[in-house]
């Protein structure tokens, strides 16, 4: 799907009149940003489920979702600055609400790992991480509104452009790219979850093979939730 989207990006979508070829980074950057933000909010929703049900699978989902979203967020910041350099001539523009609020959100979520690592007790760790995820998930839309109010509107408004501003060919490519990015996100989450499950299963089997009675065993340096 993503390959198809990229094919469309390169061969189908018309070149932008002002920005030329560089404008095509739009089809990577914007879907990535949207997916990452939705991922942060989804992580918050999973965390709410964890706090309500106390099942560690929700904590695991929240953890993995935030993990992948942060990785995407790095991609967003990098592609965003490349695009900014190409179209506005600077790597970083403070006047631009999207970049700035994205940076703030990214900085906030970067604290998720230090927070997890520095709490020893597993049960407490997942509870505190969930509280953090809820607060941060609610903070994402708030922050965007506040920062957006503060600055002039240099940034192309994504929602406005998909409904009205984009020519149909571009809009189609954009929608395909968005769907592709969403699928990529979901697949990555699935893989990550599967890998975590496999790791735990392996560890449990190893312990049994070694005849180790110690339930906790050697967990390694990991702050991931335990199942």
């Amino acid at each position, binding site marked *: 799907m993503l390959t198809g989207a990229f094919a469309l990006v390169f061969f189908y979508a018309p070149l932008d009149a002002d920005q030329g070829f560089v404008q095509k980074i739009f089809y990577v950057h914007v879907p990535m940003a949207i997916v990452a933000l939705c991922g942060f909010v989804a992580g918050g929703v999973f965390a709410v489920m964890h706090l309500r049900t106390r099942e560690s699978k929700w904590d695991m989902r929240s953890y993995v979702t935030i993990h992948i979203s942060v990785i995407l967020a790095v991609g967003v910041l990098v592609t965003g600055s490349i695009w900014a350099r190409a179209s506005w001539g600077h790597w970083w523009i403070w006047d631009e609400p999207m970049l700035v609020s994205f940076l703030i959100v990214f*900085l906030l979520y970067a*604290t998720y790992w230090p927070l997890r690592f*520095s709490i020893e007790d597993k049960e407490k760790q997942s509870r505190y991480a969930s509280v953090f995820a809820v*607060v941060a998930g609610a903070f994402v839309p*708030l*922050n965007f509104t*506040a920062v957006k109010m503060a600055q002039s509107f240099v940034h192309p408004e994504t929602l406005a452009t998909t409904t009205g501003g984009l020519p149909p060919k571009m809009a189609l490519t954009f929608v395909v790219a968005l769907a592709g990015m969403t699928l990529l996100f979901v697949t990555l989450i699935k893989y990550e979850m599967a890998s975590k499950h496999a790791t735990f299963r392996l560890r449990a089997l190893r312990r049994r093979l070694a005849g180790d009675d110690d339930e906790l065993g050697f967990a390694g340096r990991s702050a991931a939730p335990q199942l």
Partner: protein
Amino acid sequence: MRTTVAALLSKELTLEWRTRESVPAMVLFSIATYVVFHFGLDRDRIAGDLASGVLWVTLLFAAILGVNRLFVAEYEQGGFDGFLLAPVDRTALLVAKAVALFLFLCLVELVAVPAFALLLLGPPLTQALPQLVLVLVLANAGIAVVGTLVAGLAIQTRARDLIVPLLALPLLVPVLLASARCATPLLQDGGAGPLPGDWLAVAAIYDLLFALIAYAVFDFLLED
């Protein structure tokens, strides 16, 4: 609920009065920061948006010192267990701590803002004092709510001093933004401008929303 909050709050204030730990440190820190800003910017007098920025960054960092200390006594002396054993609503602790932090911040500003006017501010402060007080109160409310939440989150971690600023600074960016924008016209050279109403509204709404979030999640921070 009200009596619990009152009891907790009076305990908090008595503790601060007897130990004099947070507030004097915050005051000294803010004055030291003014000195640092004076040399860093190499300016004797500042006004307008620069003054507003310096004032708010200083107050924000001073507040983080207070946030860091907020739950330390409970954590080290077993106050959490005592509180959990008492048959009271857990939200009372959130309310009491937030109000205490709010009062501490007000005390700090009672010294820090006049000191700012004396040391760095170009235009006289008296012209816009009532409006500035309003902005300060709104900002303090936001810092108090977010700070209590962050302090509760970070108290159980090993690297508390590290986690608190990392969490609190991004969460407080909207507060800083709104208050700095509000204060800019108040500190201008040649007479204070009108207060921007939309930014006041942003600060108030942010305070309200975060109070609701904190109310919703704070119970989970106190379970053992």
